[in-house]
């Protein structure tokens, strides 16, 4: 299975590489061989034989650099996502997939037009905060941190409902985007590491893609108590701390 980590050397603000390190480890534990392709800024990406695309958060400046770089491969990327390709883009990386991006100075950037939303960035204050987010088909909420300077208007299919933290829109109650097998979320950093249940769902989907059947209940349990035991313990603590905070 080929896993592409796009622009790992610039879209790397919050320790995002941890996501790929863990994802490949868990897939390997499930008996799936993986090849992790670390794509630098200096190379043109190739989506043709890729099974999963990941990208993390970058500075607003690098986000535009990446937007320009990907403009050349725009149609391929659109094709990949629309045909049900698997992917996870975290932090501000998924912002560039919209129709329009207005930067902190008011300059307009044409997005990659995979989706139809509009992103508006501002430089008055950094928008940061811990988050608890719930999603369909997953009993356990996702936890994490959001670190951005923008709001997004016009997301038709959000990924999460906001229990704590910021949404796509100011005071919005939904977060991220979801299209078939593609997810975008403003959760930053190693969000898969922080969310073993969310990771497990993703692994299960990828396993299904590879061998046509999902992980069994026993296999899931074995992963949670085995290779993901520390992650699960860490998740419980974070969720506990955030819930405590929420009640205050």
């Amino acid at each position, binding site marked *: 299975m080929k896993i592409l980590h796009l622009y790992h*050397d*610039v879209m*790397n*603000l*919050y*320790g*995002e*590489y*941890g996501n790929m*390190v*863990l994802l490949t480890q868990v897939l390997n534990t499930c008996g799936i061989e993986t090849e992790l392709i670390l794509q630098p*800024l*200096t190379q043109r990406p190739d989506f043709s034989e890729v099974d999963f695309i990941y990208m993390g958060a970058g*500075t*607003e*400046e690098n986000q535009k*650099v990446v937007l320009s770089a990907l403009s050349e491969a725009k149609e391929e990327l659109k094709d990949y996502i629309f045909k049900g390709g698997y992917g996870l883009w975290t932090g501000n990386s998924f912002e560039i997939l919209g129709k329009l991006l207005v930067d902190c100075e008011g300059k307009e950037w044409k997005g990659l037009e995979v989706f139809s939303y509009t992103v508006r960035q501002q*430089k008055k204050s*950094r928008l*940061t905060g*811990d988050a608890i987010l719930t999603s369909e088909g997953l009993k356990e909420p996702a*936890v*994490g*941190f959001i*670190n951005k*300077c923008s709001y997004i208007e016009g997301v038709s299919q959000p990924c999460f409902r906001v229990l704590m933290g910021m949404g796509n829109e100011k005071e919005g109650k939904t977060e991220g985007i979801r299209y078939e097998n593609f997810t975008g979320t403003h959760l*930053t*950093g*190693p969000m898969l*590491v*922080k969310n073993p249940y969310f990771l497990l769902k993703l692994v299960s989907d990828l396993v299904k893609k590879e061998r046509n059947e999902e992980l069994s209940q026993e296999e899931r349990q074995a992963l949670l108590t085995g290779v993901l035991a*520390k*992650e699960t*313990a*860490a998740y419980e*603590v*974070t969720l506990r*701390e*955030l819930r405590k*905070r929420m009640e205050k």
Partner: protein
Amino acid sequence: MKKFITIIVCKILRWIGKILGKGSSLPGKIALKICPDILERVTLPPYIIAVTGSNGKTSTVEMIAHILTENGKKVAWNKEGSNQIEGVTTLVLNSATLGGKVKADILLIESDERFARYTFRYIKPTHYVITNLYRDQLTRNGHPNWVYEALKDSIYPGVQLILNADDPLVSCFAEENQKVIWFGAERLEQDTEEFCGIYHDGKYCPHCKSLMEYRCFHYDHIGHYSCTGCDFKRQEAEYKITKADLREGVITVNSEHEIHLQLKSLYNIYNILAAFTVASLVGIKEEKIAKSINGFVAKNGRVVTFTLGNRKGTLLTSKHENSISYNQSIRIAAACEEGCEVLIIVDAVSRKYFTSDVSWLWDIYFEGLNRENIKSVLLAGTYCNDLAVRFSFTGIPEEKLQVLETVEQAVEVLNNDKKEEIYVITCFSDKDKFLQRVVR
């Protein structure tokens, strides 16, 4: 008359505040309410020196104050480090005569990166030192470029910038500002030719995004760089560290002046050099500066030695959410040839605000602890499981790791007859939880 009253009120409030042990921002806040343009009405000293940067501003300011005072200058500065506009107002008014003249040769301000642009609107520095811009408290600060943009707004025309030549982002401040004095380290003995760390924030040129070439790295992305696509490069430094002997803990400034380090680490060298540069620009002779720095004992308690039963230990205060600070502590522990045990505590991420974000653990080069001489690593505190996850990818053998939920448990485990020294790496927010259980 309004000026007179405002100054009096501020002085009285400060006096009362001191008796009650209160901080120094409230008097200034009230003064600004009474007379919003009070800072424009007072007469400021000829030198207004501001210091900012992610790591070590407080140490740098303390050192500058020490050198200048010892050499006969009268310095008005904020010992409490209240560095927002209110604290600075208190400082200025409290140091002023009732007629509004600040009774000092030099006004020295430590400025928070995020608030400098507001503070300096009223008090424009004559000299502005920027020591570094690292990934620091990103849950508040966003990222270094975000801080860079905020700081850029605090630089007013005509100011004498004093910049770290070895930090590529800091050097960008020189662009539209021609008055720059550079400080930096020459090629050092322990430099590497390859980048060593987790993330390389100097990999691409901040201007044209071409690859950068490094002739040497002092640590992380700090070193001698030049862009392969444009003329952006490290500038030749006027004030420089020409040698660093970390075995002896001695650095040499401008080929002549030896300065002894309290900690055998590169961590503080730029703070020392920045202080040296400022003092020289104020007109103090280099020999005298070196002498003053050698006699200076930092009060911040960054390094604390202790005993636990029969064992000796050192606590290295590191900043949570600041990988470069952690990396420097890790280097110190890793350099302990006799062998040591390391305890890392992450119990509260910050003492000033709440967050449970531990992404920053992935930016720290914990791999540096994967060495023969590090006998074991204990991971403790509320976020011990997150530490355990991170450490499971360092290559350190699992049998060397121990995960403990509380600091108390960690102290119990370490209280034995082993001979190895203990190194404790943790933050201001967590260090007392350990220190209260050992003998200092």
